């Protein structure tokens, strides 16, 4: 039998029962739509999270106080944690490949200007903070290169804070109160929007030494290290550890490269996408069972036709192919419909809920269609084999 004839014959069989074909294909369509939709959301989430994290660059290392141990953290160790100091941050500039080392402390503070006051997120940072995170200043300058231990009382405002406190006016040069002390505004940041639900524009930046005093803290929350993008990460980590261990006596800090974090995120998110696809896969299996059922019925109904085909000289293989072809065609129709449905729903979701990240990779769509045909073929094997094994004479006699 020629392939084109095989297709035509199976097509005629499948279209002979439109309602039945439609319902059977629907089973697969629901499965494929579910797979497409769920993986789209999974993949969208993946991209969203990665994009949020990489907008500050990827050649970052975060150093935090305290040792995060995966095995057997001893309680006694907690007491020996030494604070991460501004001097530590300065010392890290000498580590190999390190370009910028930013001391950071973060908290909330009240800012007051004219009769207006506002509670904002306050960052105590070094002068290189904005540059190392690729954040831009809209007007004025970021904090100047003062000695971080005795920096002048300058403040840089997030765009929202500037708007709220000064309306349309120019804040540069004005004096505002931050946590009770007077600061001079030297710059306003460009709007950065929300990152993971956190409003980066409702923020002010002051020199880190002053922030520590304001919060009455000894230790930085974090030292942000930027390294040369082409540098070997292991050596950068090694250099940082060596310097800090020399200063603290023990490794009472944690070094977390963003790349490692991204890798972890990546695997977690891949696992989520996969799990979610597997859930869609379950409905695909149900659709496959539908095909198995309907094909078993078709073989029973068309037993005498199978007998006829055998009498006319169809081989076992030809009968097998005819029914496998029918199964694959049913599944392919369902798969195409499901693809269309899943994709449309994804598009609607994208428009209706812009906050929900949805992304349909074409490779997934092609894969889903292949999967549908695969499910159809798998479901078709049993009925097709039964059909092929029928004795021609007995099959002919069944009426």
């Amino acid at each position, binding site marked *: 039998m020629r392939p084109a004839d095989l297709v035509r014959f199976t097509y005629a069989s499948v279209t002979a029962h439109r309602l039945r074909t439609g319902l059977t294909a629907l089973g697969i369509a629901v499965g494929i739509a579910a797979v497409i939709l769920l993986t789209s959301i999974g993949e969208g989430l993946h991209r969203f999270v990665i994009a949020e994290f990489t907008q500050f660059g990827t050649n970052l290392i975060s150093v935090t106080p305290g040792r995060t141990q995966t095995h057997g953290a001893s309680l006694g160790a907690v007491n020996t944690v030494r604070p991460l100091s501004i001097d530590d941050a300065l010392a890290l500039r000498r580590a190999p490949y390190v370009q910028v080392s930013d001391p950071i402390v973060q908290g909330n503070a009240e800012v007051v200007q004219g009769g207006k006051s506002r509670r904002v997120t306050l960052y105590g940072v070094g002068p290189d903070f904005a540059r190392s995170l690729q954040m831009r200043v809209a007007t004025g300058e970021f904090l100047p290169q003062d000695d971080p231990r005795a920096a002048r009382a300058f403040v840089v405002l997030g765009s929202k804070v500037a708007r709220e406190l000064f309306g349309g006016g120019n804040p540069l040069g004005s004096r505002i109160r931050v946590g009770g002390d007077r600061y001079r505004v030297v710059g306003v940041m460009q709007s950065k929007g929300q990152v993971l639900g956190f409003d980066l524009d409702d923020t002010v930046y002051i020199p880190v030494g002053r922030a520590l005093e304001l919060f009455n803290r000894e230790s930085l929350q974090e030292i942000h290290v930027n390294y040369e993008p082409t540098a070997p990460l292991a050596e950068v980590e090694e250099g940082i550890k060596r310097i800090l261990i020399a200063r603290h006596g023990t490794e009472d800090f944690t070094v977390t490269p963003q790349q490692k974090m991204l890798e972890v995120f990546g695997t977690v998110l891949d696992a989520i996408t996969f799990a979610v696809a597997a859930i869609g896969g379950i409905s695909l299996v149900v659709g496959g069972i539908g095909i198995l059922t309907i094909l078993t019925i078709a073989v029973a109904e068309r037993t005498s036709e199978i007998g006829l085909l055998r009498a*006319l*000289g169809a081989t076992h293989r030809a009968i097998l192919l005819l029914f496998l072809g029918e199964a694959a065609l049913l599944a392919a129709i369902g798969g195409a419909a499901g693809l269309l449905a899943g994709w449309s729903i994804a598009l609607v979701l994208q428009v209706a809920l812009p906050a929900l990240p949805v992304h349909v990779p074409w490779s997934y769509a092609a894969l889903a269609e292949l999967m549908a045909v695969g499910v159809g073929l798998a479901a078709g094997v049993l009925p097709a084999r039964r059909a092929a094994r029928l004795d021609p004479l007995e099959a002919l006699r069944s009426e």
Partner: protein
Amino acid sequence: MIRLTGIERTFTVGGEQVHALRAVTLEIAQGESLSIMGPSGSGKSTLLNIIGLLDRPNAGTYELDRRDVTGLTDDELARVRREKIGFVFQFFHLVPRLTAAQNIELPMVLSGIDPAERARRVEQLLAEYGLTERSGHRPDQLSGGQCQRVAIARAMSMRPGVILADEPTGNLDRHTGQEVMGVLERLHQNGGTVVVVTHDPEIGARSHRRLRMIDGAVASDEKG
């Protein structure tokens, strides 16, 4: 040419042996017209099925066109059927969702014959059997006689040497039955080997050669 030697066919039904064919020895020459008659259960259909390679004998040998086909595999048998044998059944056995033309085409489709050649032959057969007007009709839109003519055209589409018909008129009224027999006789006149199983003595008597079966054995074999 068909040569059967010592053909035995037994069925086991509920632990009991039923002898459907006993030591049947029979030679049918190319171009012969043969009718098989006999009481119900005498083994007529069983004999026809063995000749048609749909069934295998328990003993004996079968030579078709000088080739021993007794030991062929299922798929080899399918190929021989495809090329050498045309079947006409009592209940027509047309595929309900295919048109008359597509039903006639079916054996050629299964054999992988070139579509252009298929179209040519289908058109010729439709004209030959007076079905041109009905080519696009499905079986449920055709009369019994038309259905049987489609079935005969289908049997002829691969130009087989042998046409086997098991009670081809059994499901038709007298007039249509005679019309169908006329078609089969024309086949014979054109040089085809035609074997017809029938219960109708009038139809049986019209054949040049008449076989009578009783209890699985050939009781008489008359010519002329």
